[in-house]
């Protein structure tokens, strides 16, 4: 039994981290009695621990809310909670296409942030009606008028009728519900009798049910027992179940135009489903797929290795399980002379990398060594061929290379005036080219063209530290450009340490090499012999430090009664050594890798 489209409102919430998106969603669910009071918990929609902990949404989630409006009718409100981070920009854009309107939530004490901008533009691109919502107006520091002006100046939408709320106290929540009904449009144009056309908004893996797809019906009707086809990936499946989230999964007979719900069709892995794909009936397909499908492509690569080499098989198992639920990261086995067996993994961005790494470490209890993140370089050979370089270790012989291109990004940074100087210097240090610089209400917006490889290390950490956390940052990849790029190797005791190889700009190589050698000198414990630490490009050493030999490590007193205890200490010393990685004769503790790759602190 489908709901008439005029009584449906589909919307998403656009907000910066910490501006109150999840809390607002919680309040909407609570106020409409969708979930019994005793079952409420914080961040209802964020299922994974990591999502809850970091206050970010990684997978799209949806909830259906029944709302009896003041006009006497009961409306079905479908909220899609989208990932808010740039790494998942494509997923955000798909989710946005599945709804007709957005709530733009802005913290009235903070104002518009860079991430808000990116997502609100995505919403505008998707032709959304947008209702501005000012949150945290109960706080003394809130300044609704200034923030309204900022929304109008920066984003260019009318903020005069912004809804003022406090998601924390519940103030203004009924006004938000009314605004959704009155100001957001219903879905339009759907034909229940036309061939099925539904968008696959996202999918997730459930260990009992297999893959669950979140779908938005555009035309036609989806029922249990239907045989469906994924138009891009080509897979065909029998629908076992259709339903809606309230937010618990609740089965329904059918989903009609304008509705959002889930389908379960015994699909084995998320990889078989592609966000943005069009779902239709196998026997009576629609003639044209929905526009805008593109498969996600990893842009940041790094090696992940188990600290304890005997964990490799467990790690393979963990990665395969995670891949069931995440089609956007890629992995292949990698062997490193230094680190043993591991995986070269590709991610949508740095947050994505951190999330996957944290999940392997936390959910599967495997300690990992992460090698230097690398972007994908286009290596043009003299013979005219072109290779994608994912790993500096695979760099071909320099003499055969014609030139190398690297990915560039357009970075948008919003920062209070006071810190602008530091931000500009940071961007310049990272080979950035200024594209735009504007001021709005005490804040500057700097737009830079930057190489992605300068950002993947610790750009965001540095930005936060030079601006005491006040800057916000977002980026999109704009394309590739040729530059003078070289592979820098690090040699410890004359042995190259492959895990520390990296691609750098020639002009910055000496600086990076010196910093790396100095850092390693502090990180590697003194050993029984002196150790040269060098950075080199090709055969040429560009930086060098010497770690002097350990001089004294002897127990002063050791008599008969001490033997048992001292032996235990020596065993501990030996075990500590075994936890380190051996490079030739040198033992390097794994923390050294992670610390060495952070550029400055």
């Amino acid at each position, binding site marked *: 039994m489908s709901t008439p489209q005029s009584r449906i409102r589909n919307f998403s919430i656009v907000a910066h981290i910490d501006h109150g998106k999840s809390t607002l969603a919680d309040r909407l669910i609570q106020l409409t009695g969708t979930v019994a009071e005793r079952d409420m918990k914080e961040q209802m929609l964020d299922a994974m621990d990591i999502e809850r902990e970091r206050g970010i949404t990684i997978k799209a989630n949806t909830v259906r809310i029944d709302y009896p409006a003041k006009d006497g009718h009961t409306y079905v409100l479908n909220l899609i909670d989208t990932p808010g981070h740039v790494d998942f920009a494509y997923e955000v854009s798909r989710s946005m296409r599945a709804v007709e309107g957005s709530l733009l939530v802005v913290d009235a004490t903070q104002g518009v942030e860079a991430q808000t901008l990116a997502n609100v533009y995505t919403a505008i691109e998707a032709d959304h009606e947008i209702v501005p919502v000012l949150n945290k107006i109960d706080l003394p520091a809130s300044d609704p008028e200034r923030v309204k002006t900022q929304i109008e100046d920066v984003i260019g939408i009318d903020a005069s009728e912004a809804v003022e709320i406090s998601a924390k106290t519940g103030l203004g929540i009924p006004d938000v519900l009314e605004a959704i009904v009155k100001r957001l449009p219903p879905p339009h144009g759907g034909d229940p009798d036309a061939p099925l056309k539904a968008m696959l908004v996202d999918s997730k893996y459930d260990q009992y049910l297999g893959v669950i797809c979140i779908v938005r019906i555009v035309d036609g009707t989806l029922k249990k027992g239907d045989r469906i086809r994924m138009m891009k990936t080509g897979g065909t499946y029998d629908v076992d179940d259709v339903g809606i989230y309230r937010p618990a999964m609740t089965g329904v007979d059918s989903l009609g135009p304008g509705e959002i719900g889930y389908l379960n069709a015994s699909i084995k892995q998320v990889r078989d489903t592609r966000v943005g794909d069009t779902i239709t009936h196998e026997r009576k397909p629609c003639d044209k797929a929905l526009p805008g499908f593109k498969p996600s492509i990893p842009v940041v690569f790094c090696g992940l290795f188990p600290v304890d080499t005997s964990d490799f098989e467990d790690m393979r198992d963990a990665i395969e399980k995670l891949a069931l639920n995440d089609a956007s990261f890629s992995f292949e086995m990698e062997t490193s002379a230094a680190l043993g067996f591991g995986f070269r993994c590709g991610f949508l961005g740095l947050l994505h990398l951190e999330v996957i790494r944290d999940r392997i470490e936390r959910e599967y209890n495997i300690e990992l060594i992460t090698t230097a993140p690398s972007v994908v370089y286009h290596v043009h050979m003299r013979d005219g061929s072109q290779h994608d370089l994912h790993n500096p270790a695979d760099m071909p012989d320099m003499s055969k290379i014609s030139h190398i291109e690297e990915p560039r990004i357009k970075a948008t940074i919003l920062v209070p005036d006071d810190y602008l100087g530091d931000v500009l210097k940071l961007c310049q240090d990272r080979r950035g080219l200024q594209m735009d610089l504007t001021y709005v209400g005490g804040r500057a917006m700097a737009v830079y063209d930057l190489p992605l490889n300068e950002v993947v290390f610790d750009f965001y950490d540095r930005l936060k530290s030079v601006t005491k956390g006040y800057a916000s940052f977002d980026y999109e990849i704009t394309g590739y450009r040729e530059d003078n790029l070289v592979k820098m190797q690090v040699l410890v005791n004359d042995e190259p340490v492959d895990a520390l190889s990296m691609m750098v700009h020639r002009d910055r190589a000496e600086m990076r090499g010196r910093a790396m050698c100095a850092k390693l000198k502090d990180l590697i414990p003194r050993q029984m012999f002196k150790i040269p630490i060098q950075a080199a490009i090709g055969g040429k050493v560009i930086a060098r430090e010497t770690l002097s030999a350990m001089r004294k*490590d002897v*127990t002063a*007193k050791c*008599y*008969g*009664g001490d*033997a048992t205890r001292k032996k235990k200490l*020596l*065993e501990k010393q030996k075990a500590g050594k075994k936890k380190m990685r051996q490079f030739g004769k040198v033992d390097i503790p794994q923390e050294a890798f992670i610390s060495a790759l952070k550029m400055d602190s």
Partner: protein
Amino acid sequence: MPVEPWQRGGFGLYVHWPFCEAKCPYCDFNSHVTASIDQRRWADALAAEVRRWAEVTPGRVLSSIFFGGGTPSLMTPETVDTVLRAAQDSWTWANDIEITLEANPRSVEAARFRGFAEAGVNRVSLGVQSLREGDLRRLGRLHDVDEARAAFDIARKTFDRVSFDLIYARQGQTREAWRDELSEALDMAADHLSLYQLTIEPGTAFWDRRQAGGLRGLPDEDLGADLFEMTQDICGAAGMPAYEVSNHTRPGAESRHNLVYWRSGDWVGVGPGAHGRVTMDGARRSNAGWLAPGKWLGAAEAGNGDESIEVLTDEDRDAEYLMMGLRLTEGLDVDGLGAVAKDPRFHRSIDELIAQDLLWARDESIGATARGRLLLNAVIAELMPD
């Protein structure tokens, strides 16, 4: 069959006296400060433990006895005598048996030296620790320099052999200051010196003080290494080379009892927290007495003062043989090792350590070089079985 280390390393008896008049801030030994001690009960309990061990080690020839602590010079000569008579009844004594007692260099205790000698003690080891007043106070010692020198002179006249201990690498100690102090010590003409670098051990007052940010001016690794090397040079030039990491003497005057430990001989350990290693029926057993004095005393009186006894595994035996033997300047015989010597990795490690000038090899022996002795823990860790 080759002669095994336990057969050629000597056979000793260690007696632990756990009481002190005050706990020193650097000491992590099993020592306790108690108001009154029933010397008779302790003497009988120690003697009973000696007899218990004698029953399971018939026919052994005792080469040394060592009274350690704690402060064994707080024992009455009668207590020492009771224990020694028990040992004499139990085992055949070697003609040149060495009987050492650790003593504080104070006048109170020096008054007992005659009594100890009459009971059979023929060597004392004095805990002088420093020849500088300020440092003695910082180390929590109850004697001053003059008192220590006087006690040393009495000991010299009373016993055949006298050794004393010094602690160096102390707070704020310079190379020059240590050179002067060490020269004065060598001038005192002891026949044996134990020279220990100050080590801050967990469970001591110094440890807590350092954790709290105190105890400044301790030498860093480089200064510690310099002081050690200086010590080797000065003592060597004075005819008192090191025969072990921290022990110096003229050749022939080594502590025979301590050599038992370092050569992996057998020894019986009696007293609270005392450890022993005794080979019976081809198995090397490790035992340890109850740590708490009251607990031990009750257990010993009831027939057995040991908290534990276990047979060492081949790996443990090899590890101890390496750990103890490499402390000696003479090194160790590789044929005394078990399984570890059959592992090719062990021989590869030896070759590497020789190439790095950390070990030497001669005939069937290996030993630490001067450089290797300063890095002995790292060297042993390379050689120890996994």
